[in-house]
């Protein structure tokens, strides 16, 4: 008998079968990986455990007792806490209020702010290394933190409940390596305290670094439950996608070299703005320029500033040597610049609208039959093309995009720019939450873009990806470029050393 047993779990969403008799068995004091391709049902499994989703059929047991969760409060009462794939923070409440939400210290219904604050501070202190600045942001409204810091708060919130079972659903997707390491230290400690951690991630490295055993889902069914020490990465991937792939080695291998000999496409000169203290760079046609460094050093801010989504206080942008006047994203789009933002739910999707409209949004103007008038046939053809190119798993392009799994949603966000035939592509963590196989497809897309002479700027929280894809990496620190690493001398150690070099100065 296992500590946590989930047997024969079924769940349908309308016509989509998310789970079809999946099982999960996990023990106290282990970090158990829940793996699978995008849309295989991992999040659904987690949500059923925490009471957010109602299973059509399931048999759940915790510690020998039948587990009845019909709403999140039940789960909390039973000691189950979760970090969901989509954040569940209230932006306007302070960090302390968020961490304490729904189990506040009170007397006669009145809050005890000091108790609430100190409880939050205690948890945050465990993650001290994950925040920028030297003070814990306990009293700051959560909405003002960077995406990575928000993710950490989300984790703090779950841990503050002192759970018996901690669910981490892609909790590392927007974390940088250093932040991940802090998290892992905490998780290992929890594990040693006898807590069960269910861990879902698409980063293979993390899984091997942290987990003991894994349950692999495929199309809502269990494809296998394995000891990780005895299973190779290739075997795991095969279980997930059901075919042989060379994923592990392929990252970046297809990106063509020698890009720097081609002409410069985009020049950024001394851009100053929020979190940017003067950044200059050049990208060549067919080049992938990586942005590296610690979390929150202005990489995302730079992409947003180039795209006109964030104000520039000074600095110039030149495309093919011609100065651009980009004050808002529509100007950038008109110049052939594409931007895949880092937060897909908030910035990348029209959740209630059909997949088709999401895919064609940025490019519909060019396809209009008469200015302003759309042809259904052309729209459909364009959408189908993107679906095929990125192998988006869907029922119908007319379904709301919110019904897709996280990874497939991310593909839609990327796909909308492929129809636009851009000159410059700005990617902010484009593979966040994408499974290994799909990542590969996306890498191929990036390779194809470079072959066509498109200039790509890539910010990624995943160092492997950055190393594998980039021709050059610019290392950021406090809103400045502090180092430039070329393909030839690009290695993990160099990157890490360079990111931390400020310590030596």
């Amino acid at each position, binding site marked *: 008998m296992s500590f946590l047993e989930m047997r024969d779990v079924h769940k349908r969403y309308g016509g989509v079968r998310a789970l079809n008799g999946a099982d999960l068995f996990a023990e106290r004091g282990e970090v158990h990986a829940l793996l699978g391709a995008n849309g295989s049902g991992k999040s659904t499994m987690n949500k059923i455990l925490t009471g957010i989703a109602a299973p059509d059929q399931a048999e759940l047991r915790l510690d020998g007792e039948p587990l009845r969760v019909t709403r999140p409060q039940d789960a909390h009462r039973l000691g189950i806490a979760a970090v969901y794939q989509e954040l569940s923070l*209230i932006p306007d409440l302070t960090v302390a209020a968020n961490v304490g*939400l*729904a189990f506040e210290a009170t007397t006669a219904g009145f809050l005890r702010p000091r108790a609430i604050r100190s409880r939050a501070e205690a948890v945050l202190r465990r993650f001290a*290394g994950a925040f920028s600045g*030297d*003070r814990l942001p306990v009293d*700051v409204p959560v909405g003002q933190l960077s995406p990575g810091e928000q993710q950490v708060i989300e984790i703090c919130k779950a841990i503050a409940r002192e759970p018996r079972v901690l669910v981490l659903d892609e909790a590392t997707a927007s974390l940088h390596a250093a932040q991940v390491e802090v998290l892992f230290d905490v998780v290992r400690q929890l594990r040693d305290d006898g807590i069960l951690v269910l861990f879902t991630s698409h980063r293979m490295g993390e899984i091997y670094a942290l987990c003991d055993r894994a349950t692999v889902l495929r199309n809502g069914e269990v494809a296998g439950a394995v000891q990780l020490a005895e299973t190779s990465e290739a075997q795991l991937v095969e279980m997930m996608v059901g075919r042989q792939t060379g994923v592990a080695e392929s990252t970046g291998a297809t990106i063509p070299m020698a890009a720097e000999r081609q002409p410069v496409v985009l020049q950024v000169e001394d851009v100053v703005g929020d979190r940017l203290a003067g950044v200059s760079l050049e990208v060549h046609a067919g080049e992938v320029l990586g942005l590296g460094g610690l979390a929150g050093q202005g990489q995302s801010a730079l992409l947003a500033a180039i795209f006109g989504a964030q104000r520039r206080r000074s600095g110039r942008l030149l495309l093919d040597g011609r100065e651009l006047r980009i004050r808002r994203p529509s100007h950038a789009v008109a110049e052939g610049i594409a931007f895949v933002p880092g937060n897909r739910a908030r910035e990348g999707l029209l959740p209630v609208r059909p997949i088709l409209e999401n895919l064609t949004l940025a490019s519909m103007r060019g396809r209009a039959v008469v200015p302003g008038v759309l042809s259904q046939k052309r729209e459909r053809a364009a959408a189908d093309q993107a679906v095929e190119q990125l192998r988006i798993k869907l029922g119908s392009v007319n379904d709301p995009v919110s019904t897709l799994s996280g990874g497939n949603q991310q593909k839609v966000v990327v796909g909308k720019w492929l129809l636009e035939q851009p000159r410059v592509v700005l990617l902010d963590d484009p593979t966040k939450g994408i499974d290994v196989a799909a990542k590969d497809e996306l890498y191929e897309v990036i390779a194809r873009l470079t072959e066509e002479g498109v200039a790509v700027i890539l910010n990624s929280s995943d160092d492997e990806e950055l190393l594998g894809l980039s021709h050059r990496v610019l290392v950021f620190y406090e809103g400045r470029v502090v180092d430039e690493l070329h393909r030839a001398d690009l290695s993990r150690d160099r990157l890490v050393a360079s990111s931390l070099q400020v310590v030596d100065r």
Partner: protein
Amino acid sequence: MSGTQVRPPQPDATGSSDAGDRARDAMAWLMAGRLPTATAFVLLAIAFAINVVVNDNFLTAFNIRSIMANALPLAAVAVGQTIIVIGRGIDLSIGVTAALASVVTVTLVEPLGLLPAMAVGLATGAACGLVNGVLVGIVRLQPIVATFATSFVWAGLALWVLPPAGSGEAAPRMPQGFTQGFRDTTLGIPNGAWLLLGLVGLWLLLKRTRFLRHVYAVGGDELAAYATGVRVVGVQVLTYVVGGAFAGLAAFAMLANSGSGDALSGGGLTLISIAALVIGGTRLSGGAGGAGGTVVGVLVLQLLSNIVVALRPPTEMRQLIDGLLVIAALALAGLWSNRRGGR
């Protein structure tokens, strides 16, 4: 790739960063709902100053008492509306709820006595809120239309409780002391002002409760709050109940002003209450704001109309000027606030 061997970054403790942090905290403190309220206070000061200049009768005892007495029904309704709006709701029936509560109270004064009648009136307001809350929280109707629909029901009930006079019998009235007390002063300050302060005090008390914290959470992100374990439905229902109870308080202020009830009264308060809370810095999309600002917003509106009265524009220009002034106040109130949604 399993060998992630990066040291956690060392936060550098230079002096400049410290100052930066303090500035960031100060900014955060202001943006956490306080800046919009500060804006409302600035507007209040401006409106006050203009009044002093243009209105000779502004600082007379009668006028100050009038302003307070006029403001009170709207303020009570607007505080209730604010709580509902913070929870990402809205109550288009709140003015009519006040009307229903007022006619219930006034008709019961004679048979039951003042205090029991007021208790029933308050309960009537809360009960209307309960129905709204159930429709929004449990039946999950969209607040604007659900409360639009119930406003008809409350209006019908009010007409039924107190049909318009005309049949020759005397309309029920509030006791003389009730209306008189409203106009008196205590310690040199009009009782209306004391009651207004009481309203703010009530809000400050509520704001310290767990309930209101959860109202903010539900208004900020309903699904996130649900996932975190907030009893979203219960919170929503209770928000409307509390809002309805404030409408009950507004009913007392209306009765104190008028001395007797009227089934067709109060409806006008609904939409103005929303304007007041927006000026006071509460966001209509929920999750931010507060009733302190709302009360300031009510006073701003009151003083603006006082200015127009004093300036005596041609009659036919009056509504035009009123409308433009309200829009100007709304725009100014938004200028310094971080209203989200929409670029």
